[in-house]
Every structure is written in structure tokens, then in C-alpha cells.
């Protein structure tokens, strides 16, 4: 491998938003992403939308993965999306949501700008493949 080949590494932020103490899924996905060769930043539990926005903007991640199992997605996700918009980060960040999202809520989230929603039982490879294919080109 020559030294000038661009070292393209997909960067992800895995975020837990709001009052939701279940992070096994977030851990599993963080680890799977790491093993797929991604750089993963894990937010830790109980983050406010502002913190997620700050981290996404500053870390310039390609992918923001929000894990929500609390049912508050309709409140929290739009806040995050609005913040990303404010800092000009919405267009070139792939936003995926994982967790318990009822079918009837999905169209609304997708309208907010979420790129994909992965429910329980999604094979890990599917998520990784989706990220690899859809991670935005950085120019």
C-alpha cells in the first residue's frame, strides 16, 4: 500500500439520547462497527440532543447512529435533526436510528431526514453494508 493512498475510514457516532438506560444494543453495534474497520465514538448514556449535535458537528462523523428504546423518538430525533441543520451538518451526515420504533412512526422520522431505521433482529451485516454503501462522500 503506497503512502499516498487516501486513508478513508468511516467515522460513526453511536448515540443514546434521553432517559433511556438500555445500551446493550448500542454497545453491540459499536463493537461490530469497530470490527468492520470503522472509527466509532460512543456517546455514553443519557445524552441531551445538544450533546449529540455538538459531537456530530465537531467530530465530523460520516454516520450518526441514534439508539432509542424509550419511545421518545418523535420528540428527540427532530431536535437532533434541527440542530444538525443549524450547523450545516444535516446534508452530509448519514443518520440511522436503531431501537424500538413503531411502524406508524417511521414515515415521520424519515421525513425529518433520517436515512434508515433498523429494528430489533436486523442482521449486523445488513446495517454495516448499508453504512458502507451510503456513507456520504467527503469532498
Amino acid at each position, binding site marked *: 500500500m503506497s503512502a499516498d493512498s*487516501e*486513508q478513508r*475510514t468511516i467515522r460513526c457516532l453511536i448515540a443514546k439520547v434521553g432517559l433511556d438506560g438500555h445500551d446493550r444494543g448500542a454497545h453491540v453495534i459499536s463493537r461490530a462497527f469497530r470490527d468492520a*474497520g470503522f*472509527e466509532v*465514538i460512543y456517546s455514553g448514556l443519557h445524552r441531551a440532543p445538544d450533546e449529540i449535535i455538538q459531537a456530530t458537528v465537531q*467530530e465530523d462523523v460520516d454516520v450518526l447512529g441514534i439508539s432509542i428504546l424509550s419511545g421518545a423518538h418523535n420528540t428527540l430525533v427532530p431536535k437532533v435533526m434541527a440542530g444538525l441543520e443549524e450547523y450545516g451538518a444535516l446534508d452530509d451526515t448519514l443518520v440511522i436510528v436503531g431501537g424500538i420504533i413503531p411502524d406508524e412512526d417511521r414515515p415521520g422520522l424519515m421525513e425529518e431526514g433520517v436515512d434508515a431505521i433498523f429494528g430489533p433482529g436486523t442482521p449486523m451485516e445488513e446495517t454495516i453494508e448499508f453504512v458502507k454503501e451510503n456513507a456520504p462522500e467527503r469532498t
Partner: protein
Amino acid sequence: MGQAVESDLVERLLDGEHRALARVITKIESQSPGYRDIVSEIHAHTGHASVVGITGSPGAGKSTLVDKLAKFYRDQGETVGVIAVDPSSPYTGGAVLGDRIRMASNVGDMDVFFRSMSARGQLGGLSTATADAVKALDAFGKDRIIIETVGAGQNEVDVVKTADTVVVLVQPGSGDDVQMLKAGILEIGDVFVVNKADMEGASRTVAELEEMIHLRDDPRAKLDMGHHGAEAMGDHHGHGEHTDDDQDDEPEPDPVWTPQVVETIATTGEGIDELVETLSDHYTYLAESGELDEKARQRAAEEIRQLLRSDVNRLLERELDDRGGIDDFASAVVDKETDPYAVTEDVLEPLRECLEDRDD
């Protein structure tokens, strides 16, 4: 890749746009096309921030300490940039960058710009990437920049050496830390912090450190360190006899910095103000002794060397590819048809000839 894109990005960075700063660091980190132009452009805007490097073994409390330091500077109205370097897997290149979790005191505060970087197997390139990222933060207008690394090897030592002041974090009562010090980290520390000072064995660790610091010094240096020595003793016991030390107006003929030992409890923030004071003492010393300029020159020299090395490497890789790749050479060496020295001689010959021709 138009020059205009880069200039626009630099302009937005200088304008204080967070997203542009983030993108510039991404470009630096991934060495994307055009990143050199960007660094060239921002170079002229740097030189205002003071840079502190913090290193120490995993779990010593670096991230927590950085968080508290950043908070302290923010309370003084200064802006802060943090670069946290974490190792990455040599197998997959993947990494979990976890230091951000500890930045609890500064959440939602955009004036603390925290950026995680991974050691992407860039041999020696990590220090260049870090130094360039520091330049980006500096040009952006950050007053204080903190670089945080796990003190695991030469790579990391090179990284913290890009800072003006190097802080080495030590855990009390851990034999491993003494090993670490033996392994050469002692030489790079300007300030030693014994964190978790409420733990058993803290005072012994402090004593051991001070002993080692004094052993490392030239015996004469100890004699003329004067005020600083007194300060050190007064300081770390926290008796507050630190009143008139700062205001000695007569310049010492040949100021010498003796590394200081500071005790902190990062989780509660205890000792942070003292650490800040020591850091500022060191910065004053650097400025007054002229070492700040000297360090800047050394850093620049090292940057040039590093870039030359990597660019020459690149040229050599291309040359190797043109000659059918390194595998054939390697097989030939294994089959005893030739040897590594002969191959090297062979590959480098055109370059050497070219240089010699010019000399004539």
C-alpha cells in the same frame, strides 16, 4: 479538486464556522487531496494558542483531567480545543474513541471543540496529523489547546512533543508507572500530575517522582534553580506560601525549569487551579527564557523532516512499483539471488547519481 474549494473552507474556518473547522481536521486526518494547500493557507494564522500535551497510562484519569482543565479555562472566558488520540486496531483499522464520554463538564458548549483522532497506522504520520490539527484549532482562534494521548509508545511521545508544555499523568502506587517513567517518559514531562491523590500511596508516588526528577537533573542545575525549587516545595503541599514567588522582577541569569509535581483529584476538581498555575508558570518560563521560540524552531524542523521522509517514501514506493513491486525483490532476496543491501543500492542509484551530478 479545485483550489477554490479549499480556500473557501479556510475562509469559513477563519470566520469561526465550526463545521468548517471539523471538515478541515477530517481532511488533515485522512490526508485527502488538497489538505496540504489548506494547512499551507492556515499556517500564517497560527501561533496564538498555548498548547498543552497530556499523556499517561490508560485509566490514569487523563480525560477527566482534560475535562476539568477545559472547564477552568472556559470559566476564565477562554476558548478551548481538545484533540484526543486513541489507538486503533492494527488488524481492521477500527477504533472505539471513548474519551468524549468524560467531557461531562462542557457538554453543549460549542466553545470547547473536542475532537477524537485515531492512530490510523500512520507510521510517524500521527504527529504530523496532530500538529496540523492543532494548527487548525489555533487558526480558528482557540486560546488553549490540549492534546491528550495514551502514553504507550514512541508514536504518542512524538505527539505530545508537539505541545509547548508536556504533562505526564501518574497514578499513585502503581509499579507500572514507574516502569513507564523508566521507559523514557520522565524525560519529556515538564509537569507531573499525581492524579487520584486521595488514593493510598499518593504521597509516596510524589516523593518517588521528585527523587527521580532530581536524579535526572544536572547536579548544578539543582543549585541555581532558586525560586522555582522553593515554589515546587511550597506548591505541592498546598500551604499557600506561594505569595511572592511570581513577582520577582530581577530576571535570573540563566533560568532553569525543574519539572514540578502537582497532586490532583480530577473527579472532584481538586488541585486543578494549582495545575493551571503551574502550567502558566511553565509558559512564562518558556517565553522569558526564549525556549518558546527555540521549541517552535525545533518543531518546524521536525515537521520538515517528517514531511520529507514521507514524501521520499512515496517516491520510493512509486519507484518500487515501476520496477515490478517489492515482492519480486523480496523473493529474490529469500532465494539468495541477491541481498537487501544490494537491492537498496540498486533502487537508490538513480537518485544518488542525480544528486551527485548536481554537486559537480
